């Protein structure tokens, strides 16, 4: 492999992985606090549609991003309300959110262009790739890691912060406690319901950014069904990463990069059956799932948060 090929594969892998990683981090924070949000696909779709519509009409990609964050948070708030306050089934609420978000985004796409026409095919403000001075001169790593758009750079900062917050701070400890043993957390004086609201909404905001990266950074435009199931991949990635923000990076790059790599191999005239390569990330996910389910010692350390998907009420014993 030549240097140019390695760089081009790295660039595309990081770009393709960016939106997946935002969504996965959002879902990790949500699940860590005990809420299962299957609405990722719908929230991403709404994030993408909102980001494009708002930036197109305001003329600023940043305002579009803000719109996506707000919409993501708002949709997650609906899920938080249904799961925490109404104590509804989280699977159903999440699926409903996906159906709702996908439909509404498609509707917005048909109506929010100039004069109530379609948004498909419009050119709007975008986050273009900008090389960072000095850093981008490093061989191989420079042009691949430091020649990206601002949302990817944001991820470089956010990732260590999210990890540190989760494992090394007191609010992070509370967050995990609420997801593992809400009753104990409650007894410690941690407001379980409020904590769950906060991080579910925060997770939704990250999913909104994931959508915004598709329509403002990666594709630079709106297309119907733009996420193409990537929200579901993010949910699988949470398991793949065993609920750890840093391990999510590997998964996101693997899932994101696999297509880009197999397309490049095809373009270069190599033949590895595409369906086989496409299968790989899912096989890994199933393997991880099987291991953490059947192997108790590992399950305790790496398994799902114990209270995942269970509504909390003080009177009930878990």
């Amino acid at each position, binding site marked *: 492999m030549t240097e140019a090929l390695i760089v081009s594969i790295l660039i595309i892998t990081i770009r393709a992985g960016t939106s997946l990683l935002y969504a996965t981090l959002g879902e990790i924070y949500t699940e860590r606090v005990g809420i299962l949000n299957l609405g990722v696909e719908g929230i991403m779709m709404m994030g993408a549609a909102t980001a494009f519509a708002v930036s197109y009409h305001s003329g600023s990609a940043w305002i579009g991003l803000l719109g996506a964050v707000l919409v993501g948070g708002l949709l997650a708030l609906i899920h938080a309300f249904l799961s925490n306050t109404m104590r509804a089934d989280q699977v159903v609420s999440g699926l409903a959110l996906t159906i709702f978000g996908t439909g509404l985004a498609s509707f917005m796409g048909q109506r929010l262009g100039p004069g109530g026409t379609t948004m498909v095919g419009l050119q709007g403000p975008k986050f273009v790739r900008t090389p960072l001075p000095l850093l981008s001169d490093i061989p191989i790593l420079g042009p691949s890691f430091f020649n990206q758009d601002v949302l990817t750079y944001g991820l470089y900062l956010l990732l260590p912060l999210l990890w540190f917050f989760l494992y090394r701070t007191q609010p992070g400890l509370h967050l995990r406690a609420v997801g593992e043993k809400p009753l104990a957390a409650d007894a410690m004086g941690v407001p379980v319901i409020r904590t769950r609201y906060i991080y579910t909404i925060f997770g939704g905001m990250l999913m909104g950014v994931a959508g915004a990266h598709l329509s403002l950074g990666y594709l630079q435009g709106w297309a119907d069904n*733009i996420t193409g199931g990537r929200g579901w991949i993010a949910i699988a990635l949470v398991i793949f990463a065993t609920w750890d923000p840093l391990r999510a990076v590997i998964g996101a790059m693997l899932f994101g990069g696999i297509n880009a790599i197999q397309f490049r191999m095809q373009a270069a005239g190599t033949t590895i059956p595409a369906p086989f390569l496409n299968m790989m990330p899912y096989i890994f996910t199933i393997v991880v799932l099987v291991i953490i389910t059947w192997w108790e010692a590992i399950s305790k350390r790496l398994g799902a948060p114990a209270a995942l998907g269970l509504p909390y009420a003080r009177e009930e014993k878990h």
Partner: protein
Amino acid sequence: MTLKTLWKSAALLMVLALAITACGGGQAEVEEPSEELKVAFIYIGQPGDLGWTYEHERGRLMLEEELGDQVETVTVPDVPEGPDAEKAIRDVVNNGADVVFTTSFGYMDPTLTVAEENSDVIFEHCSGFKTAENMSTYFGRIYQPRYLSGLVAGSMTEANLIGYVAAFPIPEVVRGINAFTLGVREVNPDAEVRVVWTNTWYDPVKEREAAEALLDEGADIIAQHQDTTEPQKAAQERGALSIGYDSDMAQFVGDTVLTSPIWNWGTYYVDTVGKVIDGSWETHQFWGGLADGVVELAELSPRVPADVASKVESEHTRIVSGEWDVFCGPINAQDGSVKIADGECMSDGDMLSMDWFVEGVVGTLEE
């Protein structure tokens, strides 16, 4: 999650699914007898895709314009291929449709099933091969304008490398790649066409990634057989040229789209519905070409030089006149062996089951 909650969730999901189904069927209204012929269109995507469905929608609008009060049309967008399609087709029939156009290959069996149950309704399935007393097929020889677009690409590539983003390795797509490549090699025997399979008709992200992979390999023109404009946009952002498909993609992307092989269903829809109205409709298998107007080459970009345009024009005339078609020999297979001898032409049957590449294509059909 405990087993109990899982069961509960599953039960709730079933209820939800039922509720959605019920909502979907809720459009049933009391039918008033009317003189209008009710014509329904089942779409795989949204008319706003600017590609495949957009072109069928243009055809429907032309039908409404031409036949006015004689017809009333309805559309059902975003119908997935498979069991959902059967339900969607049955719904429009139950709501009084007299003619149903089902516009995706995967609707073939569902269309046939519903057709067999409703002998008083006429069904028209696009791109398939199964027919019945009350069910016909229709499609177009898009390979003809694809060949013409190949002439443009072959003349204008400087790298002698053209990328082709392709959906699935099925005869329809293979035929398109071959016709395009024959056009390319007609004017530029040194050029080659590289194929990348995406294994999807519609996924803007994958379509873009495939186009970028080809651009990274050094292709300076991108052609495609997909449903969105994303490969065209990817090429433009890299300063490369492209050939569109389905609709005149230059209107949405700009003049870097040199031309597009396009569908033009309007005439066929008007003709067919006209025949239903005057009672002369019969089961048929329509496969029209440039001469019938059902397929066309979009207007050439101002970037295309005049001599290339005149070459396209003369080949166009040759095809329309019927004296020659794209798959008339001599044609070599990918490995250089003679596939079709000089003076021979492929039969429609052979064309419809094409599973080999012509010389000049780089790519594989093994999946």
